């Protein structure tokens, strides 16, 4: 056992194994998220959804993956080839490395760092580059329009996400994700900070470019937005990135507001189920909301999207931040910082 903790080679092997242990489940989850999305949307629209490949269409994601891999990668003649191919890799890479700090159970994170929440925020704010670079490098009007929309949207909603995170951090007194979950042992933050929970979820929709905020790819106006020119695996990487980001956003929601791996109320029958199962269960519930919203709401108009971000969410989260800080001071609930 000491081989894995003392020997540099052992440490390397251990780190790679840890990374695989989180990436592989995330990718499988992502594959079945596409399947679940098609099934749920089908149910909403009174259709059957994928039901041909395998029992209940369960092999559909793999059929799609193989189809993607067999297709030809078309690189447009006028594009900037280097950046054109860099963009999807960047998108997918960023979506995956964020998982390094997500705690699946008490202390079960690849990197249990002190500034975990800032790391997540930094990585998610980098996500916009994959989209801008894709839009610019494609040398296409539609792609560029999509990239512009996406950048403005992501930068706007990051502001309110930041304030929501600060609200949570005030109640926790630490930037460590493990501490954030442990601070919710008495009550999950979705109850005392309910408005912030809602703001975070909606901003999460905007941050991941999901309906009703999927203007960057608005297929009825700008074809497919920033990835018009992409085909085959390059397209698949964008697709993977988007869905991995959805799962990540759900994981963040459950860590910040739904008590991560903690069982509800921390009482007997619930605590028999191990933490990771709770964590995955909460992610799945949030993901269901993501899909439900997509099946229910029409796309926002662009100016309304901006209005919601800057004129509603920003003042609301700012106000709630002041209220939270005030309440914590008034009742002496401030957590003792180390």
């Amino acid at each position, binding site marked *: 056992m000491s081989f894995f903790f003392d020997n*540099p080679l052992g440490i390397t092997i251990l780190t790679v194994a840890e990374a695989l242990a989180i990436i592989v489940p995330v990718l499988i989850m992502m594959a079945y998220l596409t399947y679940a999305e098609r099934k749920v949307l089908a149910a909403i629209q009174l259709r059957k959804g994928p039901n041909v490949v395998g029992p209940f269409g369960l092999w559909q994601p793999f059929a799609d993956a193989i189809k993607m891999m067999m297709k030809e990668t078309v690189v447009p003649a006028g594009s900037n080839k280097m*950046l054109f191919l860099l963009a999807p890799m960047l998108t997918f890479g960023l979506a995956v490395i964020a998982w390094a700090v997500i705690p699946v159970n008490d202390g079960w994170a690849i990197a249990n*760092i*002190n*500034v975990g929440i*800032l*790391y997540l*925020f*930094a990585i998610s*704010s*980098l996500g*916009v*580059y994959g989209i*801008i*670079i894709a839009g*610019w490098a494609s040398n296409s009007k539609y792609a*560029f329009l999509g990239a*512009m929309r996406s*950048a403005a949207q992501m*930068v706007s909603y*990051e502001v309110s996400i930041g304030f929501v995170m600060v609200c949570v951090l005030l109640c926790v007194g630490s*930037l460590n994700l493990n501490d954030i979950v442990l601070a919710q042992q008495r009550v999950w933050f979705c109850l005392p900070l309910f408005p912030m929970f809602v703001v975070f979820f909606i901003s999460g929709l905007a941050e991941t470019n999901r309906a009703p905020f999927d203007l960057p790819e608005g297929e009825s106006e700008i074809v497919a937005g920033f990835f018009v020119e992409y085909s085959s695996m390059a397209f698949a990487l964008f697709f993977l990135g988007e869905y991995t980001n959805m799962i990540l956003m759900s994981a963040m929601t459950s860590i910040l507001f739904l008590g991560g791996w903690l069982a509800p109320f921390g009482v007997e029958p619930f605590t028999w189920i191990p933490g990771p199962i709770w964590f995955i269960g909460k992610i799945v519930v949030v993901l269901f909301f993501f899909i439900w919203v997509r099946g229910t709401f029409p796309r926002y108009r662009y*100016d*309304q999207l901006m*209005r919601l971000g800057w004129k509603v969410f920003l003042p609301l989260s700012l106000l709630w931040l002041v209220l939270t800080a005030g309440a914590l001071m008034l009742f002496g609930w401030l957590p003792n*910082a*180390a």
Partner: protein
Amino acid sequence: MIAAVAFYVFALILLASAVMVVSARNPVHSVLFLILAFFNAAALFLLAGAEFLAMILVIVYVGAVAVLFLFVVMMLDVNFAELRSGFQRYTPIGLAIGFVLAAELFIVFGGWKIAPDEMSLRFAPTAANVNNTAQLGKLIYTDYIFLFQTAGLVLLVAMIGAIVLTLRDRQTSRHQNIARQIARIPADTLEMVSVRSGAGMTEIGIRRPKVEAAVPEVEHATTDHDHGAH
């Protein structure tokens, strides 16, 4: 050992991308190299144990400032060839600035080398159980509170300045008043009219838009611009 290797890798990429920022022909490439440089600088901060600064560097500079910068470069048709035309003329000034910076760095690190004890007193090491986020907060909000607030005030002034310079209502756009749209109910806009049998649309219409009473329009004179509520 690994930290040393990582330091040299990040420092090398940082320097190389910094050189590429000024030498790349395409301005968009320049900005992307600048972003790479920021990123590697953040990695160097991490190696120095300043994890909070590293994350803030990425969030503020890479995640927000550089995005806008990239946009300006992509959208505006800046003639960079012309900007670069004075390269040879300005080379001596650039070299002079570089020399001054290098000399200052030399003096700073020289002092470190000559009198290590004295310098170590100035750089009070943080206690092992206090992370540098908390340490930074304790300093900023106590000893340096006025400087911190002044910095915030400078930013506020800059923000107000930007808004004052750009916000002007040209009176050409018709704004949407969402509160009014939501507050509208069918009774406000539609009226039931009992129609004599056979008269139908020819006389007054069965359901027609109510003739708008003289509601004082707050935003604009036009009355029919908010049918989007339906």
